[in-house]
């Protein structure tokens, strides 16, 4: 059979160089067919070979049957954003096989189930037909396991084709099926069988090859949701209320898993946390406000549709000044369609969430490491500023696997903000300021002091928490001057927030005429795009936003460049709009690059956007 193939497949072009460690592998399967383990093993074994790698699951909103793609990006230079062009395609889904083959770039390698007879469909790619359905009968005795184990065979075939070290694959299998000896044995046999079959029957004709290097030693692989969960746990989160929603559910679930191990009080054996699945996102937000008001570090995790439902409570949290952490793992929405695809879609709606004069602190982690770090900052900021703080990630960052250095232990103690905890402190406060007013700005930063329910037995310790209308002493008031004074103080507090939020990360020498502003998961593609543009002779400066409100240096950066390209993963350029409002006359310097097809951003999109704008 391989002879037939060789006749049809084009011979490698004479003198065409091999492509080593820098391509993407695209695995097309049907959802629920059990390919996840195989893909993890593939990715992990490449990682163990020391090659920088990332894995993305492009999946449908479905339990079983609809097409799903897993892409693995390898990059010797360490760029792990999505690549638009596919180097190696593994076709396991008959439903999409024709289309999958049609869309790969010329020169790609295509591994496919022999019976699909794809080799006639194109003449410019390298076809490797494999009799997966026959092989699985030989390699897997238990009929019930064959549907899953067939996916292991392609791991073996790919290992042979690309030169993945089988020893690393074996280690990855053991890690994947930790402690399940039988599973290790069955899956390893299927992989081995695939490898041996390929070695015997295929002839390598494509240029893609993996070569051991030393760029991943000591690194971890983690998804952003798990990273944020670890961050929240280390930040001392104690009350979590959440409602299941893709793509944020795994954050709460990871948090449960980690807390069950690491947040049990050794003295009593009791948990130092409560994680509650709420009846909906409205309730989740209410529970978080109740817990934050009572003094706990409270958090909820959701996505766009949940953010909408939390709108009213968020406004109350803003006006009543209650700390809360809300994680928004953004996705495309609303309702059905692309709920399992990524988007930076909630920037404007979350910044201004709720009615009245509301605006909120938003944090934008640009990597899994920052998911860990900014999750911790979110709790400190929420308590310091006494307001809801949003951690804005997205599906790409939250649910996909990323390589990172191991997270370091937090150095700073928790910042619990301005809380009067004892009667002595209260008496001192009164002696110093004349009285305790829950909403009085005694420090000039707009941030008042608070007490916690049940802590201090004193006639003025308690206060009544209301929405928009109250005096500095938290008594009911509808007086125009009381309302306006309070709104002005809240505005001052928001100005204070600019001093506390994490500032942007600026790269470049500051002298390039062209600059890029991006945020969140766009960083991976922007880094790669800047690298490629530099090679083409177009150096760029770069500012990566990490928070709203903007810190003062953002406007300065814009003013210092002729043309500033703002990268948004949404149709309307939501951050672009906010920047235009922020920088005044310098808005003319801003250009907008918008990516909004549901797939993660890739470097080419950024390059195309900048090159189009830079055309003379």
């Amino acid at each position, binding site marked *: 059979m391989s002879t037939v193939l060789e006749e049809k497949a084009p011979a490698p072009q004479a003198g065409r160089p091999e492509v080593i460690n820098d391509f993407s592998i695209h695995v097309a399967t049907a959802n629920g067919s059990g390919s996840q383990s195989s893909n993890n093993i593939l990715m992990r074994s490449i990682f163990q070979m020391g090659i920088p790698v990332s894995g993305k699951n492009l999946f449908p909103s479905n339990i079983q049957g609809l097409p799903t793609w897993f892409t693995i990006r390898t990059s010797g230079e360490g760029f792990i954003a999505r690549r638009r062009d596919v180097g190696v395609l593994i076709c396991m889904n008959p439903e999409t096989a024709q289309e999958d083959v049609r869309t790969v770039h010329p020169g790609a390698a295509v591994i496919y189930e022999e019976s699909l007879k794809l080799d006639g469909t194109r003449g410019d790619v390298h076809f490797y037909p494999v009799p997966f359905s026959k092989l699985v009968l030989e390699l897997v005795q238990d009929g019930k396991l064959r549907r899953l184990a067939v996916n292991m065979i392609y791991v073996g075939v790919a290992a042979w084709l690309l030169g993945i070290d089988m020893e690393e694959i074996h280690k990855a299998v053991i890690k994947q099926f930790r402690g399940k000896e039988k599973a290790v044995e069955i899956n390893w046999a299927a992989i081995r069988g695939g490898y041996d079959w390929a070695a015997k029957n295929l002839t390598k004709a494509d240029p893609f090859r993996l070569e051991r290097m030393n760029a991943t030693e000591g690194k971890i692989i983690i998804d952003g949701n798990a990273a944020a969960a670890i961050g929240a746990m280390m930040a001392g989160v104690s009350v979590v209320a959440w409602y299941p929603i893709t793509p944020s559910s795994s954050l709460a679930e990871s948090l449960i898993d980690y807390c069950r191990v690491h947040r049990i009080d050794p003295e009593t054996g009791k948990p130092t946390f409560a994680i509650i699945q709420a009846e909906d996102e409205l309730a989740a937000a209410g529970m978080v406000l109740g817990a*934050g008001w009572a003094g706990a570090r409270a958090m909820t995790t959701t996505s766009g549709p949940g953010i909408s439902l939390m709108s009213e409570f968020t406004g109350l949290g803003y006006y009543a000044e209650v700390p809360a952490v809300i994680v928004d793992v953004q996705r495309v929405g609303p309702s059905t369609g692309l709920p399992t695809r990524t988007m930076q879609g909630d920037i404007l709606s979350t910044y201004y969430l709720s009615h009245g004069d509301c605006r909120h602190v938003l944090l934008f982690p640009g990597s899994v490491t920052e998911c860990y770090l900014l999750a911790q900052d979110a709790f400190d900021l929420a308590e310091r500023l006494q307001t809801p703080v949003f951690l804005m990630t997205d599906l790409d960052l939250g649910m996909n696997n990323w390589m990172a250095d191991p997270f370091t232990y937090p150095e700073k103690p928790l910042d*619990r903000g301005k809380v009067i905890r004892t009667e002595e402190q209260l008496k001192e406060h009164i002696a110093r300021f004349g009285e305790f007013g829950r909403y009085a700005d005694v420090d000039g930063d707009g941030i008042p002091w608070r007490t916690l329910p049940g802590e201090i037995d004193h006639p003025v310790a308690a206060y009544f928490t209301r929405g928009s209308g109250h005096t500095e002493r938290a008594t009911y008031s509808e007086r125009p001057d009381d309302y306006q004074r309070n709104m002005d103080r809240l505005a001052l507090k928001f100005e204070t927030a600019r001093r506390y939020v994490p500032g942007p990360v600026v790269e470049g020498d500051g002298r390039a005429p062209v600059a890029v502003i991006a945020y969140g998961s766009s960083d991976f593609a922007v880094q790669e795009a800047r690298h490629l543009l530099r090679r083409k002779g177009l150096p760029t400066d770069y500012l990566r936003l990490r928070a709203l409100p903007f810190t003062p240096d953002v406007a300065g950066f814009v003013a210092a460049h002729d043309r500033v390209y703002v990268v948004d993963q949404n149709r309307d350029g939501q951050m672009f709009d906010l920047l235009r409002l922020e920088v005044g006359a310098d808005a003319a310097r801003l250009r907008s690059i918008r990516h909004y097809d549901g797939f993660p951003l890739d470097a080419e999109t950024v390059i195309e956007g900048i090159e189009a704008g830079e055309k003379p």
Partner: protein
Amino acid sequence: MSSVAEPKAPATNRAGLTIKEYGGLKSTLCVGCGHDVITRQITQALYDMGVAPHRVAKFSGIGCSSKTTAYFADRGHGFNAVHGRMPAVATGAALANASLLNLGVSGDGDTASIGAGQFVHLLRRNVPMIYIVENNGVYGLTKGQFSATADVGSKLKTGVVNDLPAIDLCAMAIQLGCGYVARSFSGDMKQLLALIKGAIAHRGTSMLDVISPCVTFNNHEDSTKSYKWAKDHEIQIQEIGFVPYFDEITVDYDPGTTQDVLLHDGSHIRLRKLREDFDPTDKRKAFGLLQDAQEKGEFLTGLIYVEPTKKDFVSLLGMHETALATMPDEKLRPGAEALGKIMESLK
């Protein structure tokens, strides 16, 4: 020789506090509003039970009823939530600090319509709190629209007739597993006071559906939530006595006609039966009673269902004795070794 009489020291309770120290702001509700009567009974019950007022956490939603938490126990913190969402806020606070006495006041709009979803889940979880519904069948603050507890055939002042069946909050609460379910009437102060004290002594959600006539919008003769209608039609299912845990127990009651229920904190509720065969610890009988009352159009009041040993949400979760809200930071942040282990597993 003249003498000036020493001013008589005001009475104090077992905590050494006067009833004034359980007070709050002056009510801004309509003169004669049933809600103010309930506020007085809440204040009295907290005083009689010797509850430390700063340990009371008060919750409410939106509506006339929800304003009332400002009118008592102002040494305790209060949280006026958004419409229908008080249960979630109270649940969060209870998780953060389970040692407080959580007391929520809501209305029929806040509970049976916009807040029905959260009310259901509060009961299902059995969150430790007292939940009082000041039920008048109308929306007062928005000037007199029907609520979901208005009876079929009840008429608004404007002549509009309610065609939809009323939601029976007590039946709903029992079905959802609430362990302390009562119905009362703001005009029946003695019964109401005993029921609130029982609720303070109970651990878990206690739901009191208190008919509280709206003197402005729903007190006319075609209303079944008017003061006169309730007064004329109220049928007590028991006479309720309350023996607090700190009083000596006396045994001078007749077990044949009186039922004694031991509550969580050691207090007893003494029920002198006025309906033969009715037993509020029997769920089927409680449902049967409510079903009969609905069919006959009766207005029954009393302790409808009680299950004093039912586990509350905080106990079910096996929570720490130290409140999460006040737990020292060292207990909240795992050590470097824990992080190291996690990182190792991800390599």
